[in-house]
């Protein structure tokens, strides 16, 4: 307690020294006010000084802030008046000044990087099921459906990307699509978008487990997912080159070795494609780091085009190169790698790449599921060891059971694709778009009809998975 009565500053004199104010000394050098030498401004260019505009703006902001209450934003500088982050310095009381790094720590990427990131993220294990899907729909119809579904999902992705911007008065800069759904549909929107997001994630994890249990290998290298896709493309090209093309066009009838060009099971392909082109739950975040935001739509379209071409390439080549006499096209497996013997070295390598991609991504998906589920149900990312253990047992258990009893990844993909696509691709984006247009008073009849039709398509897509 007696420590409290001692002056904080150590000095030789007695207690009265603490009462001597700054009027004591006339030595100006000692009484220098707070001052920063320009050379102490820590930046790349040590000669940098404060610009005249910044200095006067600083003066104004200081003065205006004294005229209102601290929480009053009447005289706060608007965004267009504040200098760019590169021109802002933070002064530390210790006498140095630091430059402000960009407030959002994400770096800005040129278009090509953004396009590549989208392509990379979208390109998933559904690529393995595309040839099977084309077989289910018929060759010609399959190609047409692939193109049509790609365009449709591109449009839905575009309205998802646009959706936070048409929300007035609120800062939506760090919102993702589920936040938009919560804004328009309240708790119901939040929970349902979470649920459908989980469907896609858990569906992907189940597929991964099934595939991993099929690809058994041990090696010691970490491979980026892009390489596995590129390798697949190379593999497909090589096989097609080796096997040659085996195509015969029978429009509506089944033959011994070929399938019709147009088949009634085409919804199975649309289900697969809904998951194959699915990126709607994270497109906003991916696009945020695009350097030129005005090119977002263009870059998104280019990414979709590239993804579509990749799928088309793999699907068409595998389908065409499948040696139809002696085999029938019906044999094309939902995972086309299963059509090759396990002794085939190239396919073995492909399986290895994919296995390692999946082993590394599986825990990441598990993390995403855990964070979203736990924070929604319990408000905490890691409520307790047992909560997380239970969740993981559930997910892995689902994967194991499916691998044991129903390892048809084509079906898993198409059902989970159609389900989560129903909400996150068709219903929510279309509804959100229509509501925002309606609130602005610009909803036209053709637009309302078109977007309602989108919703119907989504529902038909899901229903058809059960019946076709």
């Amino acid at each position: 307690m007696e420590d409290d009565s001692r002056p904080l500053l150590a000095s030789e004199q007695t207690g009265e020294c603490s009462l001597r104010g700054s009027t004591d000394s006339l030595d100006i050098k000692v009484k220098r006010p707070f001052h920063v030498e320009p050379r102490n401004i820590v930046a790349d260019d040590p000669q940098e000084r404060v610009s005249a505009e910044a200095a006067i703006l600083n003066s104004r902001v200081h003065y205006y802030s004294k005229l209102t209450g601290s929480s009053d934003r009447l005289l706060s500088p608007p965004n267009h008046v504040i200098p760019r982050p590169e021109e802002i310095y933070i002064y530390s009381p210790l006498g140095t000044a630091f430059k402000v790094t960009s407030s959002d720590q994400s770096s800005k990427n040129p278009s090509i990087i953004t396009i590549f990131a989208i392509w990379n993220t979208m390109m998933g294990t559904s690529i393995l099921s595309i040839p099977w899907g084309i077989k289910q729909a018929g060759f010609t119809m399959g190609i047409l459906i692939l193109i049509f579904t790609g365009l449709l999902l591109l449009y839905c992705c575009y309205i998802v990307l646009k959706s936070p911007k048409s929300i007035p008065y609120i800062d939506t800069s760090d919102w993702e699509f589920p936040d938009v759904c919560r804004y328009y549909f309240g708790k119901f929107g939040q929970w349902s978008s979470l649920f459908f997001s989980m469907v896609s994630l858990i569906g992907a994890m189940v597929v991964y487990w099934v595939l991993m249990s099929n690809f058994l290998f041990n090696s010691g290298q970490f491979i980026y997912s892009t390489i596995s896709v590129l390798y697949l493309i190379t593999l497909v090209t090589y096989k097609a080159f080796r096997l040659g093309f085996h195509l015969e066009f029978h429009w509506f009838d089944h033959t011994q070795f070929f399938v019709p060009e147009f088949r009634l099971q085409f919804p199975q392909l649309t289900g697969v494609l809904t998951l194959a082109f699915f990126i709607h739950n994270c497109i906003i975040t991916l696009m945020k780091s695009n350097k030129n935001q005005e090119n977002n739509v263009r870059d998104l379209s280019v990414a979709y085009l590239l993804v579509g071409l990749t799928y088309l390439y793999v699907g068409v080549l595998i389908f065409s190169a499948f040696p139809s006499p002696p085999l029938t096209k019906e044999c094309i497996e939902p995972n086309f790698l299963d059509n090759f013997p396990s002794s085939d070295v190239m396919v073995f390598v492909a399986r290895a790449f994919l296995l390692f991609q999946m082993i590394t991504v599986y825990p990441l998906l598990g993390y995403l599921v855990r964070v979203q589920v736990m924070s929604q149900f319990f408000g905490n990312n890691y409520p307790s060891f047992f909560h997380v253990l239970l969740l993981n047992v559930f997910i892995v258990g689902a994967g194991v059971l499916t691998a044991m009893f129903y390892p048809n990844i084509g079906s898993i993909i198409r059902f989970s694709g159609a389900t989560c696509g129903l909400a996150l691709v068709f219903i929510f984006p279309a509804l959100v778009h229509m509501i925002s247009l309606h609130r602005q008073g610009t909803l036209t009849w053709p637009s309302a009809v078109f977007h309602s039709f989108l919703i119907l398509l989504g529902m038909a897509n899901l229903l058809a998975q059960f019946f076709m």
Partner: protein
Amino acid sequence: MSGSAMKKKVLLMGKSGSGKTSMRSIIFANYIARDTRRLGATIDVEHSHVRFLGNLVLNLWDCGGQDTFMENYFTSQRDNIFRNVEVLIYVFDVESRELEKDMHYYQSCLEAILQNSPDAKVFCLVHKMDLVQEDQRDLIFKEREEDLKRLSRPLACTCFRTSIWDETLYKAWSSIVYQLIPNVQQLETNLRNFAQIIEADEVLLFERATFLVISHYQCKEQRDAHRFEKISNIIKQFKLSCSKLAASFQSMEVRNSNFAAFIDVFTSNTYVMVIMSDPSIPSAATLINIRNARKHFEKLERVDGPKHSLHMRMR
């Protein structure tokens, strides 16, 4: 200035939300309490109780865009409002979507001025210009200025484009104050003489309530073009702090090895700031010079004051 029985007014008018309260707060260093940023229009005139340029009282009115109650009140009180007006400052929001209506209200104010205070000076401020893109500002302002000048005939109006986020607000109000001071040219000549006699680097004359620069003299080029506004902001902040202690600001001396600056009361309407870059001249000398000059300038302010020449200097 000899005052009449009624105080002369400065009317600050404009549509609700055009920025008058913020402008007044910034220029006159008035605290804006949160409640005054109200949801509706000003119900009654907001008096500023500021002695502006001696004996002028600032009245703030919302003009136009109100309901019929306000319309009637405005119409019935019209003559009261527009009598004894020295200055009308009309604020236009550059972003307003009802240009026709704004012009209409402006014209009716002008009519009232013509009837009640035909000698009043009229100033138009096109405000919130920071919301316009930089390359379009000149164009838009010229357009508005032409319209306003045409509409204001036979009265002459002076137009300024302003924004609280750049130097245009301060400069516009400085120009307004400059035009309101009688014999201002004489003041400037005397200021120059004074500065040269005491060998000052720079001498500034500020209006007392707002610290707007009325006149200045500098003997060489200065680097910072925004220094007037900065000084004004600093002193107004200091005044705000002083007022919290029920103290009032009178004078200030700032000195280091390179210069000495003195800010002091000068005449009844003005403050003076003297900057000496010769540190060998003691403060006392400069302060005596300022005191002597004060008497001389006060006589100038009185319209019929005799002329004196300054010939005193101490080393």
